[in-house]
């Protein structure tokens, strides 16, 4: 097992290095110069040279990259060109919001998608199964930004049940926080929930055909124990992998959802950095999101290896 864990971690290292290279050099492809963007149209060469030296932009690209990586290893992501705030502190300030959004979407999946998938498989070809299939197909097809728009239209503007945007910290007012986060988490979690529901249903259908289920049934095991302890427990193994992969996609989807609901999370920070051409903040947030994605996938692989004895170490 430890060999497998070590191997997976070692594979992640070159990927993380690759991500840092992409994040650094991709930003350098942006047309125009950071310094001229900062100084505006009216600047003189001396001012530009001084600023370039200040930010270390007069050094060769490779040297700039190595300095950036060296600082990264010390936890220093650099400072925003525009606000001068440390990128790491900007990210840390916003991380709890994105994290809460992801967790709430995740809970929504667990509470609705898995039971719905399981029940649909038990009542195959019933009305409920058809409804679940429609939910699954619509869920993976509706663009999350449009779903968000419709949710705002119906539940905020017309019914007034939930706010259409903004954020209140959970520690300041838990009830208000949940009201603010409800619609965004539904909009973000719908497609993931649909994928998880479809996976749970197909996995359960496979398991229910297995001989050991027939055997347990023949031995008189009650329906409840049969489903929960025998079928669902085993059917959830592939679902966990899908759930893990989808956690990564929640991170990507949060960029749009945070923007629509004005949530001050990492996604919105990245989008603001992109819109403002704040290069240091841009490369910091790109690196953070991509590294987060890799780490989530790594954890999923490790959890999967732990729960699935068929994985060879």
């Amino acid at each position, binding site marked *: 097992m430890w060999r497998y864990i070590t191997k997976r971690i070692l594979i992640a290292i070159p*990927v993380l290095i690759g991500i840092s290279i992409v994040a650094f050099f991709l930003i350098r492809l942006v047309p125009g110069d950071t310094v001229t963007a900062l100084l505006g149209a009216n600047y003189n060469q001396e001012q530009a040279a001084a600023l370039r030296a200040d930010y270390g932009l007069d050094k060769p690209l490779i040297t700039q990259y190595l300095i950036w990586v060296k600082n990264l290893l010390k936890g220093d992501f650099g400072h925003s060109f525009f606000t001068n705030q440390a990128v790491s502190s900007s990210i840390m300030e916003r991380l709890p919001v994105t994290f809460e959004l992801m967790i709430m979407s995740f809970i929504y999946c667990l509470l609705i998608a898995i039971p719905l998938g399981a029940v649909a498989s038990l009542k195959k070809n019933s009305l409920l199964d058809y409804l679940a299939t429609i939910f699954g197909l619509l869920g993976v097809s509706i663009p999350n*930004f449009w779903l968000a728009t*419709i949710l705002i239209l119906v539940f905020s503007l017309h019914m007034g049940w939930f706010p259409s945007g903004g954020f209140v910290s959970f520690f300041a007012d838990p009830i208000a926080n949940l009201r603010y986060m409800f619609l965004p988490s539904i909009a973000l979690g719908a497609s993931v929930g649909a994928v998880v529901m479809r996976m749970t249903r197909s996995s359960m259908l496979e398991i229910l055909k297995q001989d050991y289920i027939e055997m347990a049934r023949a031995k008189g095991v009650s329906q409840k124990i049969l489903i929960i302890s025998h079928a669902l427990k085993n059917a959830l193994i592939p679902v966990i992998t899908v759930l893990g992969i989808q956690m990564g996609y929640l991170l990507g989807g949060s960029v749009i959802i945070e923007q629509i609901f004005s949530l001050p999370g990492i996604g919105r920070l990245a989008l603001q950095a*992109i819109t403002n051409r704040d290069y240091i903040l841009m490369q910091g947030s790109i690196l953070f999101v*991509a590294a987060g994605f890799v780490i989530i996938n790594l954890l999923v692989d490790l959890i999967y290896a732990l729960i699935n004895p068929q994985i060879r170490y």
Partner: protein
Amino acid sequence: MREFCYRFYKNKLAFLGFIILFIFLVMAIFAPYLAPYDPFQMDPQAMLQPPGADHLFGTDQFGRDILSRIIFGSRISFKVGLISVGLSLIVGVSMGIVAGYYGGWLDNLISRIMDVMFSFPQIFLALVIMAVLGTSSTNLMLAIGLVYIPIFGRIARASVLSIKDSLYIEAANSIGVSNLIIMLRHILPNIMAPIIVQTTLSFGFAIRAEAALSFLGLGVEADIPSWGIMLNQGKDWMEMAWWNAVFPGLSATLAILSFNILGDGLRDALDPRLRNEGE
């Protein structure tokens, strides 16, 4: 082929998806003849008109006919889908076949590049590429195409690995057929099934990505009637004119849904072993 057609035709849902997409395609090709109004024509007398006899889907804040803009929007969506998926298909499949067939350091290098590209959430990577390239339809197609390269690469590589030790490949090798011919004539036709399925599904992803990026203002130019741009502009008016936000999104959803069910149906028809519904 006959068996495939029979299996596909029997799948009612997939066939429905095919029909809907065909209608969208006709709409896109004959947009100038089908649209009741000029999609760019502003009419101050008809601003924010609700759906009715004159304007089936209502009008936007400039008095432009929403149905006409949706019809023209299907052109943008299909064009972006076709070119971006075409790009990722050609580049991704080529990279995947080369990696899988040659193996060794080349496989390692290509696979690591794919791993790095896979490490970014797709929509986020497309967003960053658009920020680098600037907003335009061409750049959008390039960005979406680049993002989906690794998906095709991985599928092609895995398929090649499963057949490269087959006897017919070994036989072609032993009689001196060149590697290029083996890859094009013997490997490519035999790995097409999963690639066709992925191509269909990727069309849906590409339409979604185009709409999402345009919605965020980082997609096509703002004056182009794309579904994403319409949603972006319509959301500011949705409290008083819901049709601005509803119809463009509904069109995008219907197109994506059709590609998804068509993709599922093709997967079932091309290779029943790939079915994931467990039935």
